[in-house]
Each structure stands twice: as C-alpha cells, then as structure tokens.
C-alpha cells in the first residue's frame, strides 16, 4: 500500500526577490515578442517558451520533462534595457528618498537619537503594523528636516516630490529611475533596520525593476478557439508589449539614437510594466484590447470577490457533490435525505478491499456502473484508476486484491452533507444519512426546513459525499441533524413539528376520541410498535394515544400556546393540548425537555413519530380549509360594521376638535402629533375589537384551528380576512404622502379623515375599494424595498463579523483566545457555559433545588 505522506506547511514568508534571485530562479530569458513559429510551435526565447511550462497536450516541458497538468510551470525573466519603477512600491521609494540624505545616504536622524526612536518605532510597528511605522518615521524625519541639513554630512537637502503615478522630482528636476536607484543603493544596512524591513539581505534598490520576472505559461494559458485560432491571455498580451518595447529600447540605445527617442521609449516601457502590475492606476489610461475591453492584469486577478484569493483560495470547488430541487417527504426520518437513484449512481464512496468485505464489494463490481447498486471505478494498490465497464469487469474481478479501493455507488445509510445557501449559520450545512429513492429530487423531512430556511417552491440544495473515514466520522458525530436540534444562538430547538404535524396533534389531544381499533391502527402507522401501555378500554381519547409515544419516566409541566397548563406525569399527558408551544420549532418546550433528558438520538426519533402521528391523524380525520371558514353571521358583520363606523366617527370628531383649536396637546408633542396619536389609538382599538368579535364568531373553522395551535396563520390574519384589514402605516405613521397635501387625487386637500390616510375598513373577503387597495399596495411595496435594501447590508455586516472573529476559539484552559494567543475572554461568556447545552444560556438551578429539596420551591 502506498500511503501518501503529507507535509505540513509551517509558515509562509513574504519578501522581495533580488535581481540575482530572479535570474537564478528563471529557466528562460525572454528576448523576442513572437510567440509561435509558422508551424504553431512555441518559439525559443519567446513568451510561450517550452522551458516556461506546457499548456498544449502532447508536448513536454523542457525544464522538468513533465506533461500538461503535471508540470507546474517555471519562471522566466526579461533583462530590461533601462530600469523602471515598480508601481506598487512608489510610496515606499518616496519615503526612503525623503528620509535619507541625498549625498551620504544616511537617514536624516542624528546618530544620538536613532536608538531612542528605534525603540519607539519598534513598538509602533509591533502594535499597529508596518503602515503605522511608516507614518511615524515620516513624522520623525519631518521634525529634523526643518534644518534642511543632513545631520551626518551637513549636505543641503532638497525637496523631493512625487508626481503621480511614478515620476520623482527633486526641485522640479526629474529623477530618472537610474538616479533613484543610485540613491537607494547608498542607504546603509543599519539605517534600513529603522525602516522596519525584517527580511535579511533586503536592499531598497530592488524596488526599482532592472530584471523582470516572467510568470510561467501555466499561469496565463491561451485558449484555442473553435476556428483553430489561438487567443492569448491578457497577461501574455501585456508581456508581449513589454518585450517588444524593451527590444526596441535596446536597439535604439545600441544604435545611439537621440535622447528624446530613448526617453519616450523608456516612458512607454514604464507604462507597460506599470499596467502589467496594476491596470487601474488612477492617473494612467488603462491598457485595452483592440476592441476597447480593459485588460485584466495582476492586481485585478488577485483582488475582489471574483479574484484569486476570495474565489479560488478561500473558497474551492468540490468533487462528489450534487445539486437539485428539494421536495418534502414526511415519512422519511429526520436524519435522512432522499437521494435520486440517478445521482446515487454517479456519487461514489471509496471502500478499501480487505478479507472481510471482498465478497460484498465484488457484488458491486458485478453490477457494474450501469446497474444500481454498482461501482464505477477501482483504484489499484499502485494508484491506477480503472473504470468498471462490461469489458473490464471480468479482469477486475479476478485481479481484485486486498488494498484495492472500490468506488461504489451511494447506498442507504451513507453519510452525506446537505446544504442550502445562504449558509448563514452552522445548521445550514448538516449531515444526513442517504436514502436512495426513485424520482429526481432530494427529499427531506419537513421538520428540518427551518434550520435550512428552505421551502419547496423550487428551492435547490447541495449534497456532498465525504470521501475519507475521518471526514465521515466527523460529519456523523458533529454535524448529524439530531446533534444540531438545539440552536447555539439561543439554546432552544430549531427543529420541530410544523404545519400539519402540529394541527394533527392539536386536534388529537383536544377533541378526538378513538375506538381501540382506530387507536392501535393509528399508532402502528406512525411507527409505534410497543402498544403494551394502551389501556383496554373501548374508547381511547387523544391524550392517551399521544401519551403512548412518550417515555414512561417523563415528567413535564408547562403551558400551551393559549396559556393553559400542560401536565405530563410519568409519561402520561394529563391535560393540555399539544400545540406549537410544545412541539414547534423555536419554542418546542416539551421537546427541549425530552432532548435534555433522553439525548439527541431519542429526540429525533420521537419527533419523527410525533410528526407522523400528527399527519396520520389529520389524513384520517380530514382537514380542509375553504372560503366558508371565514364566513361571519350577519349579526357579527353588523356589529363589526357598527364598531368601525363609530371609530371613524370618533376620529372625525377628533379632527373637528383639532380644527376648532380645542385639542389639548399631549406632553412633549405638538397638537398635530397629538391628533395623529389619538386617531391611531381610536382606529386601532376598533380594529382589535372587531378582530375579537370575528374570532369569537368564526369559531372552530379549520382556519381558526390552525391559527390557534400555531401551525399556520395568526388571529390577526384571520381578523384581516373576516373583519377588517386596518390602518396601513409607513414608518409608524399614517400614510401622508403622494400628491401635494393629500394622499391621492381622489381626496380633498388636507383631508385628515381615516379613509384618506390609509385606513382600510373592508376585509380581504369583502374586497377593498380602489383607494384602499392602493394604500395596501403602498405598504406592501415599502416592505419589499426594505427587504431588498437590507439583504446586502446585513450580508456585509455578517461577512465582516465572521472575518474578524473566525479565529477565536476556546483554549484548553477555558479562556477565549485569538490565533496569536491573545486573550479575549478569560472564561467564555463569563461563566464558561455553552449556549447550546443550556436553556438560553442559563443553568436551571431552581429545578435542581426542586429536585433535591422537593416541595413547591
């Protein structure tokens, strides 16, 4: 067996290449701008030189002898005819020039003070970084510069200016890069220490480019178009320009051309090299393609979201992953994910052959890659990958030996990671067990919709198959759905029964009485096989049916959604209805207690059974919603009508008092504000009142049942459907804008009456008048805008937070430290408690005392 040994990267050091290092590291010197000869073969000494790496299939690298994809590429170099300034180091060069003497090259700080400043600077550098150190040096030097004389050789200092982007001037006379380089060469090594260069052997003259490094071809591959034409990478284009101008400069210098021409070419070379590094320098026109498209050069390749760092390094693409539409399946387990068979045949799991599993693995090979469950590839001990086809099958079966790896199809029970974007919290990617199902969608238990924030209106999700034992073990132990039931955000469950499952259990515990046959049938259907606890009465009520699912030693006292007591004694539900408060997500108090006592795995199982019980009950009892659900008897309608009329009258009366000047201002408010507050008060009261009337009169319809138990909708929404929609508000105020001094041209100017300011007195069932509809649309649009504007803002906040805090961890001593070992908290959260292991971060001390001492306390 060849076990690959991975070396660990300990550290990465950054630095600047010296011209010598560049030439030594280079495999080729580039001297010609031509790329290919007439046969289309790379030219020696050109930019696509074979010594720089290969990008064509079939060719071999002349440096390492490897083929395409094996050869990593090799650097080359160009000897520049004249040195140029590196655009990214311009500011550093300017600082160095400004703070050193023009004749002796010493730093412009007297010898006696250097030591003192060195300690100050080291401190600044350590604490605030390189940038701050640079600013500090400037500050110090400026203090001494006032004397205009070098403290070491007394030479007079001149003013050095940078004309952006890269021209240096001393007293209005331009310093050529050669002169700049000569100045930098004079700086002594000891003085460089003060500037904070940690790299040994660093010389500032390296900041001026004399020899340019050419990136390997593998970094700038050309694309062959359909027409057979070659399209070169932007970098190659740019390098071509540089080589061309450089050669011309050489020729002109050698031919003894006039200085003007040489200067011009030199400037052009400087421009091309500058844009090679950064094509977005403020003062320079960006280099373009012939079509006018801006070239994408080094800087823009690295930065931004699509750049190398964020796109290719911090985020990577994976094999063994799949994506498709999701759909619900309440009958599969909480931990399961339904995977389509067609996918299972492409996603594989590697299994190493040994004496014990050889026969089992042979079955997969026999099935081949076309028949499920089969296998797609085997990997032999010497690392060769062979596809399993009808032709190779026989041979593979014969040669199969211990240590071979078989990449078999996904089967039930395999470990998979399941994810939905946006991955806002850790429950957005959980581990599921595969269940291979027919169809073309991923199936998931509706109870896990909440942590993923998924619905089934066309959402797609991703599936990843871990390929190593280590990864699978970690996923299974740390990421399995059942281990993620409790949110680390607030210590309550994020997984719970939803919708029909809640309605079903609510109805079961509230009103159903079943015959014994029905009860047994029901329980059996939801996976409860042990029915020994069922009493032998003929009629069994819902409470008892529900109790069968609960463990026998479970005790719980709590409240349901409407505030009634829920009591469970020794696994028997004594009173109370099972609704959202005890079964649902984000609250699920009963479930939370079960989790605490019986652990994740049991809770997941119980949750599954309760869900199934709920939906089975509902399926057998029948549950449907219709328009008649929100019908109101005539007298209720009249009553509501009266209430609203009266409120409107009251509001109008208030307006009259306001105009008459008799309205008394509330403390701290103007009279107009007072009026607004009073009107809102009156109208809201009428809305609540009519809502109450409606809720009372539409009792026991399916819609109300759902609102009551919290499975869908709330009383307010019922009231809006049956009684009155109510006041529409923008930013906490009645609608007041639109036309000048009125909301719509339909109203008189300055009309303060309820209906002119967004009060909708109709309900959704009766329908709205045109102006009411318009007001409704106004608030609707406002909400939509709000969401659209909020998403990117909060996304950025989240990115910043996670970037700033990602390296914080709890150390072995319980303190929270960052990556460099700096203590952020001495004890996590001041008491070291894990939120997801407690109820909302609090240890239940009263419960312990109650258990020990007993009694009421």
């Amino acid at each position, binding site marked *: 067996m060849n076990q690959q040994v991975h070396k660990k990267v300990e*550290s*990465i*050091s950054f*630095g*600047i290449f010296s011209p010598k290092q560049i030439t030594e590291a280079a495999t080729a010197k580039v001297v010609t701008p031509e790329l290919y000869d007439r046969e289309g073969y790379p030219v020696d000494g050109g930019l696509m030189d074979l010594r720089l790496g290969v990008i064509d299939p079939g060719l071999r690298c002349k440096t390492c002898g490897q083929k395409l994809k094996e050869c990593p590429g090799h650097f080359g170099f160009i000897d520049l005819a004249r040195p140029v300034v590196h655009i990214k180091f311009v500011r550093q060069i300017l600082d160095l020039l400004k703070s050193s003497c023009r004749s002796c090259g010493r730093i412009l700080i007297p010898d006696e003070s250097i030591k003192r400043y060195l300690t100050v600077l080291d401190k600044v550098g350590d604490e605030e970084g*390189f940038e701050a150190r640079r600013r500090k040096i400037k500050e110090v030097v400026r203090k001494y510069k006032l004397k205009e004389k070098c403290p070491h050789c007394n030479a007079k200092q001149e003013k050095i200016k940078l004309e952006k982007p890269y021209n240096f001037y001393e007293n209005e006379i331009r310093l050529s890069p050669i002169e700049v380089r000569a100045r930098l060469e004079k700086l002594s090594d000891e003085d460089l220490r003060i500037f904070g260069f*940690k790299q*040994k052997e*660093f010389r500032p003259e390296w900041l001026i480019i004399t020899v340019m490094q050419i990136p390997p071809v593998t970094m700038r591959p050309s694309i062959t178009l359909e027409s057979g034409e070659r399209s070169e990478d932007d970098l190659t284009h740019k390098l071509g320009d540089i080589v061309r101008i450089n050669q011309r400069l050489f020729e002109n210098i050698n031919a003894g051309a006039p200085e003007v021409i040489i200067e011009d070419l030199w400037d052009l070379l400087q421009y091309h090299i500058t844009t090679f590094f950064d094509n977005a320098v403020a003062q320079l026109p960006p280099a373009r393609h012939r079509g006018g498209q801006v070239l994408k050069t080094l800087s823009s390749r*690295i930065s931004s979201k699509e*750049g190398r*760092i964020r796109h290719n390094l*911090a985020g990577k693409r994976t094999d063994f992953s799949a994506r498709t539409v999701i759909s619900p399946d309440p009958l599969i387990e909480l931990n399961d994910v339904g995977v389509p068979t067609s996918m299972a045949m492409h996603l594989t799991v590697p299994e190493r052959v040994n004496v014990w599993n050889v026969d089992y693995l042979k079955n997969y090979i026999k099935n081949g890659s076309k028949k499920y469950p089969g296998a797609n590839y085997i990997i032999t001990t010497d690392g060769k990958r062979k596809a399993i086809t009808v032709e190779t099958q026989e041979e593979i079966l014969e040669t199969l030996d211990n240590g071979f790896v078989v990449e078999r199809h996904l089967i039930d029970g395999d470990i998979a990671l399941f994810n939905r974007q946006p991955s*806002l919290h*850790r429950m957005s990617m959980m581990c599921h067990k595969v269940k291979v199902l027919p169809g073309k969608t991923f199936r998931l238990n509706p109870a896990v919709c909440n942590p993923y924030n998924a619905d089934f209106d066309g959402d797609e999700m991703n599936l990843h198959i871990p390929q190593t034992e280590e990864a699978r073990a970690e996923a299974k132990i*740390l990421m399995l759905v059942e281990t993620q039931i409790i949110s680390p*955000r*607030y210590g309550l469950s994020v997984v719970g029964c939803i919708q029909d499952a809640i309605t079903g259990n609510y109805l079961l515990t509230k009103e159903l009485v079943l015959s014994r046959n029905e009860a047994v049938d029901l329980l059996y259907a939801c996976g409860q096989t042990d029915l020994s606890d069922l009493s032998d009465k003929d009629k069994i009520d819902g409470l008892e049916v529900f109790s069968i699912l609960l463990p026998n030693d479970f005790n719980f006292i709590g409240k349901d959604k409407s505030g009634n007591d829920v009591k469970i004694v020794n696994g028997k539900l004594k009173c109370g209805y099972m609704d959202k408060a005890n079964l649902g997500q984000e609250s699920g108090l009963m479930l939370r207690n079960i989790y605490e006592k019986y652990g994740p795995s049991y809770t997941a199982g119980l949750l599954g059974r309760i869900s199934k019980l709920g939906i089975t009950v509902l399926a057998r009892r029948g549950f449907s919603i219709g328009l008649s659900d929100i019908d109101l008897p005539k007298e209720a309608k009249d009553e509501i009508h009266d209430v609203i009329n009266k409120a409107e009258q009251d509001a109008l009366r208030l307006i009259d008092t306001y105009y008459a000047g008799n309205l008394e201002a509330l403390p*701290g*408010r103007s009279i107009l504000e007072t009026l607004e507050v009073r009107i809102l008060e009156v109208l809201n009261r009428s809305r609540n009142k009519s809502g109450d009337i409606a809720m009372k009169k539409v009792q026991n319809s399916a819609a109300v049942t759902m609102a009551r138990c919290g499975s869908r909708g709330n009383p307010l929404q019922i009231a809006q459907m049956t009684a009155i929609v109510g006041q529409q508000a923008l930013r*906490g105020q009645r609608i007041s804008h639109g036309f000048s001094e009125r909301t719509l041209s339909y109203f008189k100017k300055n009309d303060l009456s309820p209906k002119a300011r967004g009060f909708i007195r109709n309900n959704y069932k009766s329908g709205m008048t045109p102006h009411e509809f318009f007001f409704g649309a106004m608030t609707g649009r406002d909400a939509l805008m*709000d969401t659209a*504007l*909020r*998403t990117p803002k*909060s996304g950025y906040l*989240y990115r910043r*937070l*996670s*970037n*700033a*805090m*990602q*390296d*914080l*961890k*709890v150390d*072995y001593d*319980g303190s*929270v430290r*960052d*990556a460099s070992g700096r*203590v*952020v*908290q001495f004890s*996590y*959260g*001041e008491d*070291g*408690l*894990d939120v997801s*292991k*407690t109820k909302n971060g609090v*240890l239940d001390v*009263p419960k312990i*005392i109650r*258990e*020990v*001492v007993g009694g009421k*306390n």
Partner: protein
Amino acid sequence: MADHRKILNSYKNKLPPSILDEIKETFPATGSDAKLTEVLDRTMQSYEDAKINPGECVGLVSAESIGEPGTQMTLNTFHLAGVAEVQVTTGLPRIIEIFDAQKTIKTPMMEIYLNSPHNKLENIGKFAARIKEKVFGELVQEFSLNIFEQTLTAKLSKDLLENFDLDVKELVKTVKTKAKGFNIESEDNIITFFQKGKTEEIKELYNLKEKIKVIKVGGVKGISQVLPVKRGEEYIILTAGTNLKDILGLTEVDSTRTVCNDLYETFEVLGIEATRQLIIDEVYKVIESQGLNVNIRHIMLVADIMCANGQVKGITRYGVVSEKASVLARASFETPIKHLINAALEGEIDNLSSVVENVMINQPVPLGTGLPGLVTKMK
C-alpha cells in the same frame, strides 16, 4: 446560616459566581447542609456537562448568531422613544453603527438618572429645562426695531427666564461679547441695543438680530433636546445630543446609572470597560426590540474583541481585522493587494495559525477537531 455560607464558599473555585449567587438566593434558608451540598454537587455536575468544549470556534458561532438574525431585522426604523421628537436609530443601521465604531453617530442620546429628590415629577421639569442648551432667540418674546432711533429692543419672556433660572444681567454679559459695535442697556426684562456712531444702516440691526438669536446663553453644551419620562418609580431625562462629562459633573445626577449612547464619549469619560458594557447593552437592546432572541454571550464576545486592546476598534478593515497576525487572513478580507505588498516589503512571516490561511493551502484548521495533534514514537 453561617454553615451555608461556608459551604458555598468552598465551591467558589468550582462554580461561577453567578450560579453560586443564584443558589444562595433560591435555596431555602431552612434547608439542611447536606441538602445544600447535594444541590451544589448536582449543580456542579450539570455545570460540568454544560461547559463549553475546548477548541470550540466560539467566534464564528457568535458571528453567525448575530449575522443570521441580521437578515430579519428591519431597516430604517427611526421610531419615537416614549413620547416626543427624540429620535432613535434602531434596527440594522444602529447595529452597523456600533460594530463599525463610528466616530459620529446618527442620533446621540443620553439617559440621565437623577438622585432623589430630583427624580420626582415636581422637580424633573426644572432640571430638564436647566440642562437643555438654550439660545438667546428662544427667550425673546418680541423683537422690535425702532427705525428712527436706530435701536433694537428684545423683550424677554419672564416665565422662561424664571424657568431656566437665568439672570438678565448675566445674559447681557454673554450677548455683549457677540454684539460688537453696539451699546446695550437693560431694564427689567427688556434689552435694548443702540448702534454706536450712527451709520443710518438698518441692515446692521437686522444682522444683529439674526446673530444674537443663536447665541448660547445657558444649559449644558450639546444637549439639544430634553424629555422627562417615567421609568419605573422615578423620572429620568432622555436627551438628544450628548455631553457625558459635563452632565456627570452635576450634583443632581446619579452618575452610577447615567448613560450615553456614544461609544467614544463613554470611552473618554468612563474608560474601556464601560464602553464594552455599553456595546453589549446597546446591541442587546436593538436585538430585543426587534423581537429576536440572541444569547448575550455572543454579543459579549463581539464587544470583547472590539475592546480587547484597550482601544475601541470597529469590526472593519481598519479596526479588528487590521490587527490580525496573519497576512493571508487580512488579505482575504479586504484590500488584498495592499496587505501583500506591505508584507513583502516588511518581510513578514505568516505562521498559518488561524483559519483562512489553512483553508487556502488545504490544511486542517486549528479549531475543534483540528486543534489536537498526536505525537507517536517511531520504532
């Protein structure tokens, strides 16, 4: 009882103080020592069970816990606190403002608690009026211009003068410094301005009128609005505009409870620990007002990292992120070129001690299960 205390004390190093306090509060005084020990032992057991595991990436969990509900927060809810035109920035904008550690905040505010008897309804109004920053124009009941005599007369409101506890003579003094070129006479509550040397220019008087209107004549600088409100049993003052230093200097003010929502002001006046607490309180307040549930530990951690080196640092590329030791971690956040160039110049070494760098080079991250290493003896 003494025994209870002794037993509790013996657990001092085993349980955090908050839990010990709770046991002390809730354990019945009549309970036996044995029961107390049992309670303590069982609490310790469940405390140990609920303790956070070493290696847990608490930072990321906190970031997620705040970032995820951020998507549900409302934007632009400038709602009115209590009953007045004192506006407060809440919701996402406020959270961003705090985490950015912005130097100037949109709605600076203070909550001033007062010592008894000033926190009673009768006295609160007067004190509020006193600290409010006042300008001359507010006091004037009536301006009158006499064109013949070239004079400007300002009739001051007696009520207001009394309310604000201001003296006319003092007023004249302050106004005089700004009204150069005018003689000023005052009689009772009437102030008259005479033009020195007749220029026959009525314009001058007009200009003077506008000028003196905005002269600050009293109150605490920066307090532009005051609003007394009832909080619990007492009355407190909410202000728009802040001046923590001067307000805390007043003897009527309960300096232990008075707060200001400006991070930097709090930092300058009360120091870094107060600022940390302010961040926690302010963020928690917003999250709570949005009806969201985020455990306080997560907010604490953010506040702690913002204040960790004794200076308020925002969660920005100039603040917390710039302090990271790793070049690659900084570069992966924002402005990567700048960080890479500086690292090259300085000759920095990245020791790959945090998360992103290791992700970049495909190595296990030093968190959670990636933290422990195994050493084995080779034969």
